[in-house]
């Protein structure tokens, strides 16, 4: 099993997301993450999909996406040099004793604390997979109340 990342440029209208995600379900493919957002061109969106599978099924995935009329362009981000980022938000329980440690940890990872109250704080962090995974590993030693990841997105260099 390999990990592949694809970027799809798709028409930005209702139903396109279900066409894409439905294809994965129908054909029995696994997706690790999927993120969507608008791009510089009007009426188009970009989806970044991290896919797990062997080379043959990856080829099929690409061909099946090509068959969808709403898919305009497919970029294989795993085949060429690319940069990837993901954003996470983590809500962590704070006490007077661990607050300082948490702030240090966030600073080391160049994250931001975007909310703070008596009981918890919310951290925002962006980075590539290695950095995000390492941070989550460390923050687990605290009491995580909620954690959300946006899924990866990337651009070819």
């Amino acid at each position, binding site marked *: 099993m390999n990990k592949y990342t694809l970027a799809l440029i798709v028409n930005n209208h209702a*139903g396109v997301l279900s066409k894409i995600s439905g294809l994965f379900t129908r054909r029995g493919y696994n997706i690790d993450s999927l993120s969507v957002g608008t791009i510089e061109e009007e009426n188009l969106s970009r989806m970044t999909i991290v896919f797990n599978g062997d080379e043959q099924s990856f080829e099929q995935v690409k061909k099946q996406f090509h068959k969808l009329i709403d898919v305009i362009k497919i970029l294989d981000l795993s085949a060429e040099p690319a940069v990837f980022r993901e954003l996470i938000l983590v809500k962590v329980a704070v006490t007077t004793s661990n607050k300082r440690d948490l702030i240090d940890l966030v600073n080391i990872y160049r994250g931001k604390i975007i909310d703070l109250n008596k009981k918890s704080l919310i951290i925002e962090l962006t980075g590539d997979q290695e950095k995000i995974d390492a941070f989550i590993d460390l923050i687990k030693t605290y009491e995580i109340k909620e954690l959300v990841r946006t899924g990866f997105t990337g651009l070819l260099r």
Partner: protein
Amino acid sequence: MKASTAIVNFLESEGVKTIFGYPGGAVLPIFESLSQSSINHVLVRHEQGAIHAASGYALSSDTTGVCIATSGPGATNLITGIANAYMDSIPVVIITGQVATNIIGYDSFQEADIIGASEPFTKHNYLIRDISTLGEVFKNAFHIANSGRKGPVLIDIPINIQNADFKGDYPQSVDISGYKPTIHGNPYQIKLAHKKIINSKRPLLCIGSGILLSHSRKELRAFVDATNIPVLHTLKGKGAFDESREEYVGMIGSHGHHYSNEIIKNSDLLIVIGMSISTRTRANFSIADKNVIHIDIDPAEVGKKIQTSIPIVGDAKEILNELISRDYSTDFSEWHKFIATEKNKNNNYLGKEAFIAKKLGKISNLLDEDAIIVADVGNNQISAAHNLKMNGKRRFITSGGLGTMGFSLPASIGAQMSKRDRQILVVIGDGGFQMVMNELITLFENELNVKILLIDNQSLGMVRDLQKAWYNHTFSVNFKRNPNFEKICEANYISYFDLNIEENISKFLGHPSVALGRINLVGEENE
């Protein structure tokens, strides 16, 4: 102009002469406009009949079939036929009515999400929310349905849109940024394929329905003339190549000729054109060690199920023309000798097959030179495929990929509507017939001179064979009671012939109007 009138005008611009449908509240504006147009509307008795008829129309006329149904149950009744058209790459445009845009999503009366439901088996679908896109959507839908790998395209139109005022024009051309099918084969790959062919000793052509869908029977014939390569076909590829020719070998697949699989084993090169290599097609042979040239319009089919040495994506007609233009000084006479020997070894029918083979053989001899055969699904279909001979002008239409029982009878409505002067023969079992016998009256009502050959074994023959093979008993595959088919015919004003009486066969085929001929399989012939 009222949008419903604009829609009917669009259909006329696309050359649509006949549409198959069933009205309901959410499509009445379109029906109103249809009543004032030149388009012929065939009123079926169930929406499934409409989509199968549109498919039969498309397959026999080589144009796009069109059907129409209302929202909710009307639309959902189409689903089996849409899935069938998708599996068999049949160009159809499906129009469904939808509840008004302001009440979509409220579980309104006769509301169903047909866009979501038809997603897995339409080539593309559209829900029209913005009336300004109406012209573009229709133009694109017809283009998408009948180009590239053909298939069904559904347009869902809310009733308030049908009643609104449309101010645009019908576009003259299409430009869909996400849809540019490859037509011309890669010249380098074609060069490689040519080299492979002239260096092979035991090549085989394996052809599927892609030859028929791309209208390349003439090109295939010319290619075989030039190369002398033996030809095998799939169930759906039947009729793409003249069966009386020396190069004709037979049908492949789980229900193909026994010898075909043996011949494939001995080949050194397979030239696969326009076939999806389904699980049933490659059931009985392995081609892991073969050189394979795979020609298909759909890149996703190439390399999907078998390893391909030379993939060529493009239109079969274009690629065959490219291949024909090259030199072939090949001699495959030894290979032809081997094939002839294999064919003679294992070419006899036994038991019940012999009985039906004799009957169908006689029918095959009596059928018109350009008859259109519409076979259903099951043992009747396989018997038809084995015993009704295709001379190159005849057509063989059936449900292959999805295996939809009850396809043939409604499909014959479409076939006859597109080819009024051709002889149409339906071959159907008693199981499939009982699923769609409500459409008999549609045949009569429209004065369609279809001949229905009912092979009645009082059971689901193919399922029974499978059940016996897998579980060694029969359960729920035999009909304890069948209707009186003669009376069913009488009630629908259709002539009935008992084909167990030999002389009736020619009377049945020569009957001047729609008729049903029944072969009743009993005793030893039905085990």
